[in-house]
């Protein structure tokens, strides 16, 4: 972890989201907003369909780098902007792809930039994890 170069991909994965995954996250997190499991309510508030919780996308994205870090305690700061929704189809679900690459390196620290895509769309903006490397 001491020889990081900007642009190095340190971790990458695909996550398949289903409606079951959204209900599971609702229960685990306590966020029971029905736009995350009921099509009728999602449509009533003007959404194209049921969306994944933004905090689920944020949570699964950072977990991509934890095995590489080896210790979640190396994470000093993590922030994202929620820029685009992840629509989770009742039949087909949704495939989310996460790439974690080195964005900056300084003394004892690195900034890991997460690129999270759903189809061709990037769904999180400025998804950056500041980590302790020393």
């Amino acid at each position, binding site marked *: 972890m001491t020889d990081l170069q900007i642009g190095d991909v340190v971790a990458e994965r695909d*996550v398949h989201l289903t409606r079951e*995954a959204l209900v*599971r*996250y609702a*229960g*685990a*997190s*306590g*966020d029971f*907003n029905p736009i995350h499991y009921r099509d009728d309510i999602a449509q009533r*508030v003007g959404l194209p369909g049921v969306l994944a919780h*933004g*905090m*689920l996308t*944020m*949570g*699964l994205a*950072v*977990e991509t780098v*934890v*095995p590489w870090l*080896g*210790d*979640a*305690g190396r*994470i*000093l*700061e*993590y*922030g*994202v*902007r*929620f820029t685009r929704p992840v629509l989770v189809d009742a039949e087909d679900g949704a495939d989310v792809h996460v790439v974690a690459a080195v964005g900056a390196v300084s003394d004892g620290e690195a900034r890991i930039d997460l690129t999270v895509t759903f189809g061709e769309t990037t769904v999180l903006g400025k998804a950056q994890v500041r980590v302790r490397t020393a």
Partner: protein
Amino acid sequence: MPVNTELVGRVFPPTAPYIVGREKVREFARAVFATDPQHVDPAAAQALGYADVVAPPTFAMVIQDLTLQQLLAEPDSGIVLERLIHAEQRFRYTRPIVAGDELVGTLSVTGVRAVGKGAMVTSEAEVTDASGAHVVTATSILLVGGDE
């Protein structure tokens, strides 16, 4: 009712202590597709120097959510849940949350900025442990839609 700009600077009372359970951490870890053993296996967490399983980084939202319920319950806030969009989220950690922690959250509203007919509300939930030591600060920016 528009969002009340006088919310800025308001500090809420600390939330009731939240005891982090091992099974809750495991449940949350599974929900965010966390695969690392430190989140589910006490021996793996202990090998890293922690007393028990380590919560995934975004678990702090559970405590933050308790504080945001206080904000939403304010009769003069002008914030309506149905019109709320989570725009940004940030966590700054002193240490990870570990099973067995007893945590309280203290919310401060740090900014309200008019955006069209609505507002951007920035708030910080400072999460501390039973000794009063800082664990994590969760900052959220909520976009609150205005009346149609």
